[in-house]
């Protein structure tokens, strides 16, 4: 068995076109994804310019609040005190994005709709919420007013957006999960090549191997193990590229990610061996079939449009239960988004069962196969 695995690995590593595209295509696609939307969240932030018009009975606390926001190295907001006409001129000339009027009532005047204007609005709301809270504390628990003021001084985000499992909420990461799933399924092409080399109707080399006393199951298993080993390396390279070169945050779930990739690679390879063993079609037809299966599977798993996966989940959940790409992406979600060990386990078991099933089916298909013509 080791003899077969050794030579299978030598043959496949020397035959670059077999392992090249399953490795390179996902890397290229990953890079394109990254440039398309992978770094949206890291877009350069620009300080918002605003004017403050001090009117009678100005709220000095609000002015101090704004000053604290300006202290940062990259301040969220930069405020200039102007007279009402100058402030209105500045707004008109788009030198500022908004004007705070600090009379008895705090008001905000903005010149458009956009992120800077939303930030100014949000700051005003935050301040007013805090002010109301302080007034409430002063009224109900005057003894705690100092502590409350200190607490408020340490400005904190009180509402944190978290995922169900306390991990990532980056919506774009789903595309990369689907990409990894697709890369796993691309192992099918390595598996197909292996299947071609064990079917005597497809190559002379296969015919020679078929008349040796090597058991067919042994031939399939050794092909599968060597393909799987090589393709798992492909997927590891992709994962390393995504994590360390493109700096995608997989939330430190390395071991689980590896486990999914391991089973994902196996399902890809065994699917290729199965399709390669199925029927008496030519190699070209089988390549087309596999391409169709892997791309359709990846599409349904959300590779091209994230909503598709949810749509399929709602309309035809069974499809996603048997779609290896969807099961792989689901497993990634379980680890990085849902934190659902039960569902994660189910996904892994599903992949393992599919893999064993496909391998056994391949064996049954070709173990006693005699062909009508070769």
């Amino acid at each position: 068995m080791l003899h077969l695995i050794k030579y299978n690995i030598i043959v496949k590593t020397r035959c670059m076109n077999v392992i090249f595209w399953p490795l390179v295509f996902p890397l290229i696609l990953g890079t394109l994804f990254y440039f398309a939307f992978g770094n949206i969240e890291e877009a350069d932030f620009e300080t918002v310019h605003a004017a403050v018009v001090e009117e009678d009975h100005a709220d000095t606390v609000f002015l101090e609040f704004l000053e604290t926001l300006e202290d940062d190295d990259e301040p969220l907001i930069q405020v200039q005190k102007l007279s009402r006409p100058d402030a209105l001129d500045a707004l008109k000339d788009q030198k500022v994005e908004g004007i705070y009027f600090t009379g008895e009532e705090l008001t905000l005047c903005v010149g458009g709709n956009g992120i800077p204007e939303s930030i100014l609005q949000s700051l005003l709301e935050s301040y007013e919420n805090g002010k109301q809270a302080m007034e409430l504390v002063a009224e109900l628990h005057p003894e705690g007013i100092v502590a409350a003021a200190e607490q408020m001084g340490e400005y904190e985000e009180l509402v944190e957006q978290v995922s169900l499992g306390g991990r990532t909420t980056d919506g774009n990461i789903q595309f990369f999960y689907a990409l990894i799933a697709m890369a796993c399924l691309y192992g099918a092409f390595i598996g197909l090549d292996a299947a071609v080399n064990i079917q005597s109707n497809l190559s002379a080399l296969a015919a020679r191997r078929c008349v040796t006393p090597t058991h067919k199951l042994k031939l399939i298993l050794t092909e599968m193990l060597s393909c799987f080993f090589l393709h798992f390396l492909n997927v590891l390279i992709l994962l390393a590229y995504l994590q360390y070169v493109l700096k995608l945050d997989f939330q430190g779930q390395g071991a689980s990610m590896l486990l999914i990739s391991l089973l994902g690679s196996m399902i890809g390879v065994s699917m290729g061996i199965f399709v390669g063993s199925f029927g008496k079609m030519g190699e070209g037809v089988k390549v087309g079939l596999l391409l169709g299966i892997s791309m359709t599977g990846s599409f349904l798993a959300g590779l091209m449009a994230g909503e598709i996966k949810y749509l399929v989940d709602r309309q035809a959940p069974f499809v996603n239960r048997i779609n290896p790409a969807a099961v792989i992406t689901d497993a990634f979600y379980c680890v990085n988004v849902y934190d659902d060990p039960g569902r994660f386990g189910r996904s892994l078991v599903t992949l393992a069962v599919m893999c064993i099933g496909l391998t056994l089916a391949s064996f049954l298909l070709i173990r006693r196969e005699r062909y009508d013509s070769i």
Partner: protein
Amino acid sequence: MVEIKNLVKRYGDVVALDHLNLQVREGEIFGLLGPNGSGKTTAINCMLALLSFDRGDIRLFGEEMSPDNYKVKQQIGIVLQNVAVFDELTVYENIDYFCGLYIRDKARRKELVDEAIAFAGLEEYQKKRPPKLSGGLLRRLNIACGIAHKPKLIIMDEPTVAVDPQSRNKILEGIQELNRQGSTIIYTSHYMEEVEQICTRIAILDHGRSIAVGTKEELKMMIKTGETITIEAVALAGEQLAAIRDLPHVFAVDYEGQVLTVRCTKARHNLLSLLNYLQEQEIVFGRVFSELPTLNDVFLEITGKQLRD
């Protein structure tokens, strides 16, 4: 060792093997001779359980051959018509790979691989990969991969196709050597000279049927032709040709482009009586050849067509 009874194989409407019967005995170099499309390769592929067939029975080493009869497969070596080696492996690795499918013991395998390399004369090319080898060397590698494990039965399907004369001779000598070492060999070819040179028994195939089986001497005895006399640059009149036809033991006369071909039955002095007649008639002639019957004559007489038609 090999017994094929009433083997029928159809490709749609085409009957590739038509109730083929063959028997190969231990120690033979058994030749399957026939033109392209006569069913040689189909018969081999059925024998190896690669092809399904419609009727018949194939037994190797007394056992029915099937895709999972690994016991029988252990004793067979094959050399297919198409070179079947890994382009990605070196000469040594290829032979080691295929030998390893039969022989598990590493030390023994190394010994056998070295022997096969020496046998095929590939010592200088051990580290080369197949794409770097010439056609002749590739064929030799193809053979080395099939015989390295020293099988009891070696099946060779046209192993010398597209091979230069030097490599062909080496291959034919090698096959005889393998036979001397104890292997039974089934050898298919459409080159009658090769089959005549090395095979101890021959089956002639045509349209999927075995039309004659025997040693080359037995086959030649089956036909009427005992001698074929060819005379070049001879000018003959109609009545002279008729007179030649009437000579004793002459049964066929062909005259085309001033070349006279006379077929005679097995008898003494056929050439002498023909030359005497030409001398009596004062007919001038050029070169004269007298040939004993070939397998082509056997094929021609049985089927009415040349072996290479």
